[in-house]
């Protein structure tokens, strides 16, 4: 079992004909992911060629609109590789087309656009992971995004993180210790995004096949503090964490748009203290994420 995506998940990729979209769609298909449609305006009727897990050629139909793609193929999830200024529109299109889960990978979407998207999501059942994220992977079943598939191992550790490569580092450590992952979710590094830590922790808490959770946070905002409060009240499974940015100076944006300490708020020290107070074991260094989680089992 897993959360969000599995071997049966049918996916439409928006921006499948672009350079990032086509490269990563091919990687996902080769991993075994069921990408059943592509959507790019003015490219309807084209076929997107790729090779599946067994090396067999597949042709993915491309549609002008997501609505058509959903209607013709039954796709329920959209993964978005559309450039920043068009990405919010692409997300809205996926929501309107009836997708249950939307995963915008795009980095650099203006925050005002995401505020509008969030408003659109209010009161709906549609889930969004990202933007500015690596995506979601359920090992051996469905890789949806830009993460390297081969470092993952099927198992029962849920992973959730605001950072891409730091997730790979954590997953790499877990796999090396023989600890496989149920699902790994990259929630992204933007100040306004979709699912937050609590949304993901809830899913893992309810997933019978997730035994423990590894979460990676970073400076900026208060999502980790909110998660800590939620964990203290609700979480039935052990949680290990790491918070990046102990050495980050205040007032500077550290790569991610959301990774900034402003007005003395959002420091790593505050987040670590909140998590520890909630019973979460925080890794003292990023090299000890895997071993910290293992110590809880």
């Amino acid at each position, binding site marked *: 079992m897993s959360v969000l995506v599995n071997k049966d998940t049918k996916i439409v990729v928006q921006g499948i004909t672009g350079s990032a979209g086509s490269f990563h769609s091919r990687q996902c298909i080769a991993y075994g992911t069921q990408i059943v449609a592509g959507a790019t305006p003015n490219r309807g009727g084209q076929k997107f060629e790729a090779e599946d897990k067994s090396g067999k050629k597949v042709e993915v139909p491309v549609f002008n609109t997501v609505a058509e793609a959903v209607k013709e193929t039954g796709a329920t999830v959209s993964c978005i590789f559309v450039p920043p200024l068009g990405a919010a529109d692409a997300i809205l299109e996926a929501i309107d087309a009836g997708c249950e889960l939307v995963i915008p990978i795009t980095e*650099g979407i203006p*925050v005002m656009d995401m505020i509008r998207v969030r408003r659109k999501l209010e009161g709906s059942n549609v889930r969004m992971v990202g933007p500015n994220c690596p995506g979601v992977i359920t090992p051996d079943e469905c890789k949806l995004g*830009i993460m390297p598939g081969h470092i993952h191992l099927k198992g029962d550790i849920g992973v959730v993180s605001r*950072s891409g490569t730091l997730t790979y580092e954590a997953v790499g450590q877990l796999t090396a210790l023989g600890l496989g992952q149920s699902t790994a979710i990259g929630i992204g590094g933007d100040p306004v995004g979709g699912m937050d830590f609590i949304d993901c922790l809830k899913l893992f808490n309810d997933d019978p096949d997730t035994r423990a959770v590894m979460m990676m946070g970073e400076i900026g905002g208060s999502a980790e503090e909110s998660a800590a409060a939620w964990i203290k009240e609700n979480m039935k499974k052990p949680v290990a964490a790491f918070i990046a940015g102990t050495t980050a100076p205040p007032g500077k944006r550290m790569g*991610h748009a959301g990774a900034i300490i402003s007005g003395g708020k959002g420091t790593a020290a505050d987040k670590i203290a909140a998590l520890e107070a909630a019973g979460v074991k925080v890794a003292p260094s990023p090299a000890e994420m895997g071993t910290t989680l293992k110590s809880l089992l």
Partner: protein
Amino acid sequence: MKIHEYQGKQVFAKYGIPIPKGIPAFSVDEASAAAKKLIDETKNDVVVVKAQIHAGGRGKGGGVKVAKGLDAAKETAGKIFGMQLVTHQTGPEGQKVQRLYIEQGLDIKRELYLGLVVDRATRRIAVMASTEGGVEIEKVAEETPEKILTEFVDPLIGLGAYQARKLAYGLNIGEGTPEPKKTVKQFVKILMSLAELFEKEDCSLCEVNPLVVTGAGDVVALDSKINFDSNAEPRHPNWKELQDKAEEDPVEIEAKAAGLSYVSLDGSIGCLVNGAGLAMSTMDIIKYYGGEPANFLDVGGGATKEQVTKAFKMILSSDKVKGIFVNIFGGIMKCDVIAEGVVAATKELGLKVPLVVRLAGTNVDEGKKILKDSGLKIEPADSMADGAKKIVELAKA
């Protein structure tokens, strides 16, 4: 992206927000001429000389002074222009004042605070108002949070006039003014314009501290602080003209132009990493093992060999760097591309400090081979911890 007070006020003016009369000046002579013009126009010999730097806390640092009469204005401008202005936001070295703003003096009765920010918890624009104007709002938030009133903007509807009125009455803005109704009306109009401006101009922060009420009961934006959301830069071509490169770290500007994300730090160990989270973690682990990072550098997910070369050169050309740690977990980023860039930069500039390289993920074997075949003195590392320990040791030697 930050802009100066006088530029922010030009944006305010565009949206009909009342500001005092003022003229920017790029020399003491220009400042003097500006003061003369203002005194003549307003028939009031009080002007304010304001240092234009991006950091806050200018008044406390001695960068904002009231002058009475033209001679005093010129003398004050002479003192402030060119000074190293130190505020709680500049760091101890301060920031050189190269621009001034000369503004008419006003009859100020009350100083208030207005601030609009993106609230991450509610995912909306938060409009904050406080009676504690003219001071550090962080301090107010810390010590007397009840003095900050907040309303949230529905992105589909915009700020409601009723919300602005709620804040107006909450601040008791009409109190003691000749015509309270007029003052409330002006305040509401300003707030509505600010909310519109924030959205249309893609701000990430917009502060008026202080917003003042004059003796005549008029509401005026005495200060402005606007930060733009850098992600929205492509749809605002005019931002280029607003940029003041003298206010930014030249290395950070260079990095940005090359599509890299770089922040200078005070330590001695240079880092080159892919991904923001891993880059921060690499700084953290260097510190954990007793070293100090010299920079944050994220080459991103899809860097080319040229970008990596550029990034590595930036680290190599810094005098403070006593050792370099390259930490890569290749996902989209391929290890061989990193290796090629490192080798190319080193061949061009030479390598005078120890270099530790940790490669993992996509094309790791190809990357390791390129480094090995280069004949460069590179210390390989098996893991993040191994690499961090090694570079801290080597940089000490």
